[in-house]
């Protein structure tokens, strides 16, 4: 292990390390801690300029209720779910299929198609912006959840295909050959042999895509524009404009917006990191 395991060092170093660890963490998360503390301050504290001292009162319930009653944040959150959940499902369906096709079968254009999916991941969104907005208007889905669902599904399929295909390539190919010898049809092989083995990949991508889509801001501003359809990222931006001096409410809103992906991350940590670090190890 590198660096030298701390158990093998002198007691002095061990103590310093154990003290440094929590201090480093607090410094690292200081901006977030500040937001969390501010979200439970009273309006009085904010106007009096008491941002960094001890709160004069703890207004956890008041502030969080105020955010929900004084702003459409409940609607924003709902909109985010309406976009995120279908996108995750559609993307997984599409990429399980493309990953299967590219991972199992050998045909001439296989690698070219694979590389087009991979390359698509890296292009700047701006080159798609005008045509995709146009397309959404022509399809009649502009300013609805569907505008975002369709685009995100298509775009994320690129990354997910890369992931799924590499995952399937690592499965033992003998399984498929054995099934073929038994006379199992290709479609049944997909359904009964490959798909059950893909569960870890599906879990990893589900959490990853959920987080990516939930946190998307750019497309939310390009494809939606009213409070009835805007996801929480775009909503938070407009709330920030309205609540100029109400930092306790902005902070509470930020925490609410950040919560779903954070919960997702902590519940599915292993899968999340497996997805994110794809390719970091040979």
């Amino acid at each position, binding site marked *: 292990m590198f660096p030298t395991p701390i158990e093998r060092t002198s007691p002095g170093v061990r103590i310093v390390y154990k003290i440094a660890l929590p201090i480093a963490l607090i410094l690292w998360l200081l901006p977030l801690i500040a937001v969390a503390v501010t979200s439970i301050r009273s309006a009085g504290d904010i106007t009096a300029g008491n941002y960094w001292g001890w709160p004069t009162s703890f207004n956890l319930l008041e502030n969080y209720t105020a955010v929900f009653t004084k702003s459409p944040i409940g609607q924003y959150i709902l909109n985010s779910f309406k976009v995120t959940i279908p996108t995750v499902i559609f993307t997984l369906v599409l990429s399980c299929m493309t990953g299967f096709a590219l991972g199992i079968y050998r045909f001439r254009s296989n690698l070219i198609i694979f590389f087009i999916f991979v390359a698509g991941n890296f292009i700047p969104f701006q080159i798609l912006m*005008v045509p995709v907005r146009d397309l959404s208007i022509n399809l009649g889905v502009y300013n609805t959840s569907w505008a975002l669902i369709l685009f995100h599904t298509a775009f994320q399929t690129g990354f997910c295909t890369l992931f799924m295909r590499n995952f399937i390539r690592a499965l033992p190919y003998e399984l498929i050959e054995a099934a073929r010898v038994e006379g199992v049809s290709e479609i049944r092989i997909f359904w009964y042999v490959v798909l059950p083995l893909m569960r870890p990949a599906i879990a990893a991508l589900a959490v990853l895509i959920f*987080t990516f889509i939930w946190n998307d801001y750019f497309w939310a501003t390009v494809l939606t524009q009213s409070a009835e359809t805007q996801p929480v990222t775009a909503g938070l931006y407009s709330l920030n404009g309205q609540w100029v001096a109400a930092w306790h409410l902005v902070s509470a809103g930020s925490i609410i917006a950040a919560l779903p992906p954070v919960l997702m991350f902590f519940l599915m940590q292993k899968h999340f990191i497996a997805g994110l670090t794809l390719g970091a190890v040979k």
Partner: protein
Amino acid sequence: MSSLAAYWKANQLRLTPWLFLAPGMFMFAVYVIIPIFQSFSISLYDWDGLGARTFIGFDNYVELTDDEAFYTSLKNNVIWLLLYLLAIPAGLFVALFLNQTVTGIRLYKSLFFFPFVISQVVVGLVFAWFYDPSYGLMNVVLGLFGVEPIAVLADERFVTYGIIAAGLWPQTAYCMILYLTGLNAVDPEQIEAGRLDNAKGWRMLWYVILPQLKPATFIAIVVTVIGALRSFDLISIMTDGGPYGTSRVLAFYMYEQAFSEYGFRMGYGAAIAVVLFLIMMIYIAYFLRRMWREETEGL
């Protein structure tokens, strides 16, 4: 047996992949591949997004060469790119710090990773507030040392650096997790061999560990470069391109031109997007070439 079923049976192996590829390829073509070409074409027109298009050839690109704001954005993109790469050594440093087995280290690792999980909108709001000249934490701390408050986001000299610092926060977390995974897979025998050869500290890191972390470093460079060139969210949230457009980057300037309150200039915006795309193509080509070599090695 009908002839269709017989045909399917005979050609199953050849047809199945295309059947499975069709829906994904269709969506990807409609929403990603074709729009790239459409943007190239739109960039040759003068178009407000609603009315008739007027073909103007390369006039939009000619206009770009004479556009002060374009050069400001381009310059800021270069600054972003260079400084964003700091996330890689910073991430490695944090990963080395956390690569221990003391109790609770798993929780520490996840909490260090936290900034990457939350939306850039929230990161932007948090940092905008951190920098606030009258009550932001940064200026409170500076005040303790007797330094006058600095309005980072309102000062042309500091604004881009201030936003990049905010972006480095989640990006460092991302690089950290890549390196933690990489460190996990480092061959312990090589470390022992290095120790026997008296390699310690920096020498060990440089000659034994880093070569083994190459795949992690490669991914870290790729995602960081792409992240730097894609920077949009933080700028939009923290400054809206200001003050006086000095914190714009190409991605933001394009959006502003295409959807600005002064009228939609889709053609001009598309031309900016094409320039950004071509810059990014250099990196995409590099990445794909490397991947292509790996893929065709075994064949």
